[in-house]
Each structure stands twice: as structure tokens, then as C-alpha cells.
């Protein structure tokens, strides 16, 4: 372990951001983790105080502070509702990086982030092997939702009902596309994101179908890497920088007008974090990342902004299915997208849109939070499940693959016959 004095100095660099918290405690009203535990150390105010107190020598337990910081979904509900506008997410990610540098990365995370994620070809190979063998280790948990569970792997993954890895990852079918400007004269770069690529290729195919339908030219460069959020959330800035360098290479060229992703978390990471991480590389890298960030949009936002998405004229007769929408935190709270997916859903033929209660309450997934804090994650998730069921929906849609995994797990555990879809899947089906 390095010198704690240095740790305090590095944390003090956050002082100008930390000082804006006036300790009003209003974050208690929106934090899903606090609502579950009712402990001050789980809410933003409490965590900000701990970072501040560690920097100011009032406490001496960096390990415990890191534990508290890790017990957070990074959903951004606190920041979106903060009366003082404290940049909570920036502070938390920076503090996680500083504390991880001090404490060291856990061996498991080291293996995942530094050994695997940063080498996309190796990662892809590993996953494709996994997809071939997964049947041996797992058994079907819910045939309606197509989930699996695993007795053999339960020490690793608990009792999760998980979506199986895709037999053919998205990138096997679309390793690279470059189709000019299209008839709509819009050239769209497509960043599917890891989960879509490896578990939900149908979402990627739906995006391609929708873009082609509207006459967009598509630019899908070959060497895309993970957006880096799993590394950043674990405080591993080194891996995040490596991944970003690969992505900057792929997306600084291509001369596209817009970059779209069907993943709320990727969109938010690209828009808000890439420029900040790139600033650690070089001013040129920062400029490149900013150019990418400025052009990045969620797929629903893009479609609604550029095209008429009302397909209700295609309506067939027969009974309508009820569809509801879950707001991913990284769409609504992080980048303010919530009306656009609803506009698409309201224009779908054969569906009736209903709002669920607390549509913007976090599903509890939080990426690696789900891996480290499955019990809390599940309790938060079951609240979402109850709201979905209460809405009477046949289908719950969202705009984030991680939320899809979480809702699938929750609904599957309860054996509810509610389908989980990405909004773009329903849209593409209706075209």
C-alpha cells in the first residue's frame, strides 16, 4: 500500500466539487440503495462526507470508504435531483479511481479488465467458446423468457436467471459496414456495445433494419472496444484509457454525422465520460473524444429527431398487446432522454402503451453492482418487477441491455409471462 498522505492529497483535488454539497440530505428521497438499507453511508451525502473526511484526516479507513463507494449503482438519481447541482457521478468515479490506485485492483477484476476486456479479439474468442459450452453447465430456468440458471456455476453467479450468450454474436454477422450516406443523406456510425454484441444480437439487427429502412448510410467500424464503464466503475482508469484509445481510433474517422447506440449506458459513457478520460491521454485525444461525444445519440432519440416514427397507420385488427417502458437511469437522468422512446411506443401498431408506476426508478442492475451486491440489486429489482406486473403489460421495453438483463432475471425468477424487449426490437418488427 502506498502512503496514505499521498492518497489524501489526491482526494483533496476533489475539494472544489465536494464543497458544493450543502448536506441537505435530499438525495435520501431518490437513492434506491438508501431506500433499501436506510443507512447514511449508502446515500450520496454520506459518501461525499466520507471522501471529504478521508481527505481531511478526520478518518483513516480508506478500505471501508471504498466499500461504501462501491455500494452504489451509479444510477445518478442523486445528481439528477441535487438542489446544489453537485457533480456526484464525476466525484464518485474519480474517487473510485483514486482509491483503487491506492488499494490495488482485486485479482478477479484485474483478470477481467486488464487481461480480457482490453483485448477485444481475445475477449470475443473467449465468449464464443463460452456460448458453445454453456449448455453443458446450465439448465433452462424459464422457457417463456428463455433464461437459464446454473447449479454448477452457482458459487460464481448465485441463483441468477441469466440470459444465455448468443449462439452467434452480432459482430459475426456484421463485422464491418460502410454504406455511404444513404438515401436519407445521413451517415450513422453504429456502436452496438458489448451486451448487444454478445447476448442480444437481435437488438443490433433491429438497429440495422431501422437505419436501413429510413435510408441511413451505416458506418460500423471493425475494431470497436468496450465503452469502458465496467473498468471505470471499478476504478480501473488504466484499462479504460486503453479501451478508449482503441475506440478513438475506430470512431475518429468515418466522417459520420451521428453515432448511435442502443445501450443507454454506452451512450451516457461516450457522451459524458469519454472526453474526461481522453483528457488524461492528450489534448488531441480530448478534442477527438469531444467530437465523438457531440455526435452521439441514443437510437430512439435519433429516430424521433430525424424521422416520422408513427407507425399506427399500419395497425392490424385484433387484440392489442399492452406495452410499458422502463426509463434506464443512464438515459433519463444522465442525458435527459425519456420522451423519445415513448413517442415510438405510442406509434406502434398492435400495441397499447401504458405507463408503469415509478417508470424512472432504477431497476437495480448497476452493471458490476449486480455482481458484487446481488441481494440489494434483487430487492431493488423486485420493486421494478412489481411495478411492471401492476401495469398489466404483456411486454416491458427499455433502452438499455443491462436493464433488460435485470428485468429478465426478476421476471423469470417470479415466472411472470412478461416479455422483455428493447424498444428498437418492437419498432423494427413493425416496419
Amino acid at each position, binding site marked *: 500500500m502506498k502512503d496514505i498522505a499521498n492518497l489524501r492529497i489526491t482526494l483533496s483535488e476533489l475539494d472544489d466539487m465536494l*464543497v458544493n454539497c450543502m*448536506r441537505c*440530505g*435530499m438525495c435520501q428521497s431518490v437513492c434506491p440503495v438508501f431506500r433499501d438499507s436506510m443507512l447514511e*453511508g449508502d446515500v450520496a451525502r454520506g459518501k461525499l462526507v*466520507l471522501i471529504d473526511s478521508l481527505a481531511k484526516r478526520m478518518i483513516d479507513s480508506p478500505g471501508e*470508504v471504498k466499500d461504501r463507494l462501491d455500494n452504489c449503482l451509479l444510477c445518478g438519481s442523486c445528481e439528477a435531483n441535487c438542489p*446544489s447541482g453537485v457533480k456526484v457521478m464525476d466525484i464518485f468515479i474519480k474517487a473510485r479511481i483514486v482509491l483503487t490506485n491506492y488499494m490495488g485492483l482485486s485479482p478477479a477484476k484485474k483478470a477481467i479488465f486488464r487481461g480480457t476486456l482490453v483485448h477485444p479479439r481475445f475477449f470475443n474468442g473467449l465468449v464464443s467458446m463460452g456460448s458453445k459450452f454453456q449448455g453443458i453447465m446450465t439448465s433452462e430456468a424459464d422457457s417463456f423468457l428463455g433464461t437459464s440458471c446454473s447449479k454448477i456455476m452457482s458459487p460464481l453467479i448465485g441463483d441468477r436467471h441469466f440470459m444465455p450468450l448468443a449462439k452467434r454474436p452480432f459482430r459475426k454477422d456484421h463485422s464491418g459496414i460502410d454504406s455511404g450516406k444513404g438515401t436519407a443523406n445521413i451517415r450513422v456510425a453504429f456502436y452496438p456495445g458489448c451486451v448487444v454484441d454478445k447476448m442480444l444480437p437481435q437488438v443490433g439487427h433491429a438497429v440495422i433494419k431501422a437505419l436501413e429502412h429510413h435510408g441511413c448510410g451505416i458506418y460500423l467500424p471493425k475494431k470497436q472496444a468496450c465503452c469502458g464503464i465496467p473498468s471505470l466503475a471499478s476504478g480501473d482508469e488504466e484499462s479504460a484509457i486503453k479501451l478508449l484509445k482503441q475506440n478513438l481510433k475506430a470512431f475518429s474517422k468515418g466522417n459520420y454525422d451521428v453515432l448511435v447506440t442502443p445501450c443507454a449506458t454506452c451512450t451516457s459513457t461516450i457522451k459524458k465520460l469519454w472526453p474526461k478520460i481522453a483528457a488524461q491521454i492528450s489534448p488531441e485525444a480530448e478534442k477527438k473524444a469531444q467530437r465523438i461525444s457531440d455526435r452521439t445519440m441514443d437510437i430512439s432519440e435519433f429516430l424521433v429527431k430525424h424521422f416520422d416514427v408513427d407507425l399506427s397507420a399500419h395497425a392490424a385488427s385484433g387484440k392489442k398487446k399492452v406495452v410499458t417502458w422502463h426509463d434506464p437511469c443512464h438515459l433519463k437522468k444522465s442525458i435527459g432522454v425519456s420522451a423519445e422512446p415513448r413517442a415510438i411506443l405510442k406509434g406502434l401498431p398492435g400495441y397499447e402503451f401504458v405507463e408503469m408506476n415509478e417508470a424512472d426508478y432504477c431497476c437495480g442492475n448497476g452493471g458490476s453492482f449486480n455482481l458484487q451486491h446481488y441481494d440489494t440489486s434483487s430487492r431493488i429489482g423486485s420493486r421494478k418487477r412489481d411495478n411492471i406486473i401492476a401495469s398489466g403489460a404483456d411486454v416491458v421495453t427499455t433502452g438499455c441491455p443491462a436493464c433488460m438483463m435485470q428485468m429478465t432475471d426478476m421476471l423469470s425468477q417470479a415466472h411472470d409471462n412478461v416479455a422483455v424487449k428493447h424498444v428498437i426490437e418492437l419498432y423494427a418488427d413493425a416496419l
Partner: protein
Amino acid sequence: MISGNLKKEFENLLGEKNVMGDEVTRMNYAYDAAVLDPVMPALVLRPDSSEQLGAAIRLCGEHGVPATVRGAGTNLSGGTIPYKNGVVILTNAMNKIIEINEVDMYAIVQPGVVTADFAAAVAAKGLFYPPDPGSMKVSTLAGNVAENAGGLRGLKYGVTKDYVMGMDFFDVEGNLIKTGSKTVKGVTGFNVSGLMIASEGCLGVFNEITLKLIPPPRASKCMMAIYDSVAEATESVAAIIAAKIVPCTLEFMDNFTIRAVEDYAKVGLPLDAKALLLIEVDGHPAEVADDAAKVEEICKKYNARDIHVAKDEAEKNKVWEARRAALSALAKLKPTLVLEDATVPRSKIPDMVSGLDVVAAKYGLSIGTFGHAGDGNLHPTILCDRRDEKEWHKVETAVKDIFDLALGMGGTLSGEHGIGIAKAGFMAQEVGEQSLSYFRKIKKAVDPKGILNPGKVIGD
């Protein structure tokens, strides 16, 4: 310090997970929303039943351990900052609404019920719990009672004390003391409930509280009046009251606040306006129409340059959005925000507003003033950076000037935020040494070892 044996006893009573002594948790309960230095407690206790709460207090009493009870920790005067080597007792595991009685219009609650949750549960039964402190989304009802919290509706509906019918609470020996009743009338015994309200945890620890509920108003109407002169705005306030109209809400905003709100929330406020009033009247539909017309007339008479009456719910929300945004808008301007609440008789509002301008100019400080003009409870909000020692010294002196100003007009140190630690030193200035000594005698009689939230209200 708390010995290992005593900690063990607490653990036996409350269960290990409800007794927290690690450094990080102790740091997490060392502060509240007041701009004051944190004090780390020795232990944090979280009882989850009446029995556990009573037993914890009894043990504190027996061993002379200072105990500070904490709900959501939103106190603005340091009332929930613990005492050195003392314990913090959390009430948030006791958050059940025990009963909402629609026929007799009362409710019984545990201490940790969140105010907004309670108001919503009451509304779902077609009844109304009016107190609406700014922190109601997180604040707890016991905290509201302990501080006698107010809110926007104080003018017409009163504050928390007007809704407390009775309670039971634990004394320092852990005995359950019952006071008040579920009846509209009740004169049995000393009015100890009255004493417990605003006692800031110094006289006992709430267990269950009985609250009065009322029927909700059937109609309401709200408007915004814009002024080119602060004096005319504040004179309108006095004139509305003098005309025997009691709006449910009558809020004031000065030019500094107007500009901050507009910059932040873009709700279309005129940047050059010197002041604005937000007024809502409610009650029977006929009365509402009548009152609203009279209020409009008065505002015109005092040269309001523009009066905007909300036509529907959406417009009404827009008007209130401006008020709701006030604190956020000011908070974003500077790192530290000192939210004052010295209060004056409402007829003195014009003098208070001009006095605050003098204070701001004297010290060269940014002070945004907004608040409950109708009940004389303004919130002069000083914006600063606590890290700047010179500026902070000026702020502290300016706060004293504000107290002098309010007391000079026959006002009071605190309208709704409490005395806590922040204002304890000024008590004698308002009530005099004799009264303070009387308060201390009461405290000594019920808490001879001085373990219940020591240092608050009456000082050490």
C-alpha cells in the same frame, strides 16, 4: 468513551447489526444540514421497535451516555449533531403509520415516518395533513415535532404544533410517558405534549405521535404578482392580511433570487422586477373566487406591474416551480449556503427586507431573500465559501446583525429551523437570563444527568 461491556449490552438489546461503532459509520452520523463542524459519536444505534428504543434510552440514562436522536439529519441548526462520546439513535427503522382514522380524523405514527409519505397516505384517504417543510420528502415526523417544523402553508394552516394531539415518549429512565389524547378536547394532566414540541430531543424521546388531520380544501387559486418596488410588494402583503384574507401561501422573492431562479430554471420571470409575490388562496369555491379577486385588487392598488393568475393546474405548477427552484437556484451560485430563518411579526416585513439590504451592503455579501412573507418568516440566504476565512467571519457577524434586526422588531431567532447548537448562544438575547434559567431548571428536573441531546437549545 463507551466501554466494550456497555457496547455488548447495547448489542444484547438491539442485536449486533443495529449497533454500529466503526469509524466510517460514526463519521456518517457526525453532521446534519447545518453549516457546523461535525462531531463523531461513539456509537450509532438503530432500534427497530418501541421496546428496543425504550431499552436503549434506559441504558443511556443508567450509564450517563449522551444520546442524540436522529431522523433524516436535515436539521439546519445542528440539532442532530451528536455530543462528544455520545450515541446517535436512529429512528428510521421505526417508520410505520400505525393508524389513519378517517372517522375521528387523526393518525398515529412511529417516529421515523417520512413526512411526504405520510401526507400522501393521508391524502389517499381523502384527508389532509398540511405541514409541508421544505425537506418533507425526506424529513421524519418526529423530527418535525421535535423542531416544530413549518412550511409554505403556515400562514393559514399553522405549523406542526397545530397538528399534534398527543404522543407517548420515553423519559431518561426508559419509562413510557403518555400525554394528550385522540379527542378534539382533552385537558387531562399537564400539557406535556406542548412542552415536547420544539424541545429538540432535550426532554424525551418520541415513541408514537398522534396527529390531527383535516378535510382538504375543495378549491384553490394561485397567482404571481410582479413589482417594481420591494416596498410596494411587502406593503401588499400587509394589506392582504389587513383585509382579513388569509391566503394558504404568500411567498416573497427579491430581485437577487428572481435572477438566480430565472437563470437556473428559465420559467420566464422578469429579470428587472424588484420583487414578486406568489399567492395561493384555497377553501370553498365561492370563497376562493371572492378572495382571489380581492387579492388581485390589492396587488393592483399597490402598483403590481403585472398579475398572472394561473388558469389551470399546469399553470399553477409553473408558478410554484419558480418558488420550488429558489433554494436550488441560490445553492448553485456559491459553495456554501447559509439559510437563515429569523422571523418578524408580519407587519414588519417591509422593514425587515430593507434592513437585510443594509446588512448585505454593510458586509459586501450576496444575500438572496425569499420566503414566507405572509407569516413574517423570510429566508435571507447568504451565499459564500466557507473556506474563505475572512468572508466566513463576515458571514457570522452578518448573521448576528440579522438576529439584532429581527429581535429589534419584536421578532424571534428562528421561525422554523430550530435553535440547536447554532443559535443556542443567542437565546438569552431573546428571552432573557431568567427565562433561560427556567428552561434549564425544567431540563434538570427531567434529565438530571443531562444526557438528552446535550448542548442544544439551552446550551451546555
